[in-house]
C-alpha cells in the first residue's frame, strides 16, 4: 500500500531561513505519528508543508499519492491542518462553522450532523457562538470541521495546548477513533507522556531534520 506521506530530503524556506533542512519521513495509513522536539525545530513547518501551505524548496513530497509540487490542489482538499489557530469564525455558531467547512467540499447535511455528533457537539453546543466556547470546545469544533471536510490526513499542531485534563482525554479518544476509522494523524506536541501513549510512533525533529532515537539523521 502506498504511504500517505512520503517526504525525501524536503527543504522548505521561510523568507530566507530554511525551516526544514532536508526531511525524510514516511507515514502509513492509520498511523498516529508524534513529532517532538524543541521550539523552533521545524515541527510546525513540517505540518504546514504537508498541508501545502509552505512551498517545497528542494526535495520530494508525495502525499496521498499526489506530488505536492504538481498536484497541490488535489492534496490540499484531502488534508486537514489544525494549527495554533482554529480557523473558525467567532461570530458564527458551532453548527454553522462545521456546515461551512463541510460545504467547501460539498458535504451533505447528514455528514455534517455526523461530524457534530462524533465530537459531542450535536446537542447543547451546536447553536452557541464560537466566541463563547472554551478552548477545548473550540478545538473540538475545529476537529468536527476536519471530519466534515472528509480530511484523510490530519495535521495537528499542539492540539493539547490550553486544554484541561478532561478535555485532553476526550481529545485523545477522538484521535484514536479517527485513526481507527482510517484517518492518518500527525501530531506535533510537547506533551510527551500523553501524546506518547497516544502515538503509534514517535519521531524527533531537530534543526529542521528528523532524527532517529539514537541521534542519527533520518
Amino acid at each position, binding site marked *: 500500500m502506498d504511504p500517505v506521506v512520503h517526504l525525501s530530503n524536503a527543504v522548505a524556506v521561510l523568507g530566507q531561513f530554511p525551516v526544514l533542512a532536508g526531511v525524510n519521513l514516511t507515514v502509513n495509513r492509520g498511523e498516529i505519528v508524534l513529532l517532538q522536539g524543541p521550539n523552533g525545530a521545524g515541527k510546525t513547518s513540517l505540518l504546514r508543508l504537508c498541508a501545502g501551505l509552505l512551498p517545497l524548496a528542494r526535495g520530494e513530497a508525495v502525499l496521498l499519492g499526489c506530488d505536492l509540487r504538481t498536484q497541490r490542489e488535489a492534496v490540499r482538499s484531502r488534508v486537514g491542518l489544525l*494549527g495554533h489557530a482554529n480557523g473558525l469564525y467567532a461570530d458564527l455558531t458551532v453548527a454553522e462553522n462545521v456546515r461551512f467547512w463541510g460545504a467547501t467540499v460539498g458535504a451533505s447535511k447528514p455528514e455534517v450532523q455526523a461530524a457534530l455528533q462524533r465530537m459531542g457537539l450535536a446537542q447543547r453546543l451546536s447553536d452557541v457562538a464560537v466566541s463563547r466556547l472554551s478552548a477545548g470546545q473550540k478545538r473540538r469544533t475545529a476537529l468536527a470541521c476536519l471530519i466534515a471536510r472528509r480530511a484523510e490526513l490530519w495535521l495537528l499542531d499542539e492540539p493539547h495546548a490550553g486544554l484541561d485534563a478532561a478535555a485532553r482525554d476526550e481529545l485523545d479518544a477522538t484521535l484514536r477513533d479517527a485513526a481507527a476509522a482510517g484517518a492518518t494523524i500527525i501530531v506535533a506536541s510537547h506533551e510527551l507522556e500523553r501524546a506518547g501513549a497516544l502515538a503509534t510512533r514517535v519521531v524527533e525533529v531537530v534543526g529542521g531534520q528528523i532524527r532517529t532515537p539514537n541521534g542519527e539523521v533520518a
Partner: protein
Amino acid sequence: MFRVARLIAAKDLRVEMRSRVVTNQVLPFAAIVMVMFAFALNSDAVVSRVAPGLVWLATLFSLLILVQRSFAIENADGATDALRAAGVDPSGIFLGKAMALAVQLAVLELVLLVSAVVLYSTELRVGGLVLLLVTFVAATVGLALVGTLYGGLAGGVRGRETLLPLLLLPVVAPVLIGATRATESALGTGGATVADGWPWVGLLAVFVALFSVGGTLAFGPLIEE
C-alpha cells in the same frame, strides 16, 4: 466556483448579521464624514453643488474600512490559511467576498444618499431614478471587486493598513469620477441632464467588466504564498 462564491458570501453576510460591526460602526462613521464635509465647506450652495461627489468620497473612505473588516474576519482565527489549506477555489473566494462586500456597500450608499438628501438638501427627480439606480449598482459592484482584489493582497501581510489605501485609491479613481458625474446627471446637480449621465455609466460598466475578469484570474496568485 459559483457554489463556493455563494457559500462565502452567505458566510460573510451571516457574520455581519451576528456581529453588526458594519451596521454599528461603519455606517455611523460614514454619516459623520458627511457632517464633517459640511463643516469644511461651510456654504449651503457649495455643499449642495458638490453633494454627489461627497457621497462617493465618503463611500470610498468607508470602502477602505469595509475591506479591512472583510479580511479581518478571515485573519482573526487563521481562516485564510484554513481556506487555502482546504483547497477552496480562490476565484470562488474572490467572487463570494466581493458579493458580500457589494451588499454591505449598497446599504452604506443608501444611508449616504439619504443623509445627502437630509443634510445637503439634495433633491431626487423622477426622470433620473433609473440612471441613479444603474449608476449605484455599477459603481457598487466595481468598488466591491477592486476592494476585494487589493484587500486580499494586502490582507495577509504586515503593514496592511497602510498598503491598502496606497494600492486601492488610485485604482478606484475612475469609479469616483464616473459615479459622481452620473449621479450629478441623475440628480440634475449644476444643471446636468439625464442624458449626460449614460456615458459615465458606460465607463463604470467597462470598469466592472475588466476587474471582474482580471480579479477572478489574479486573486489566486495574490493570496497564495
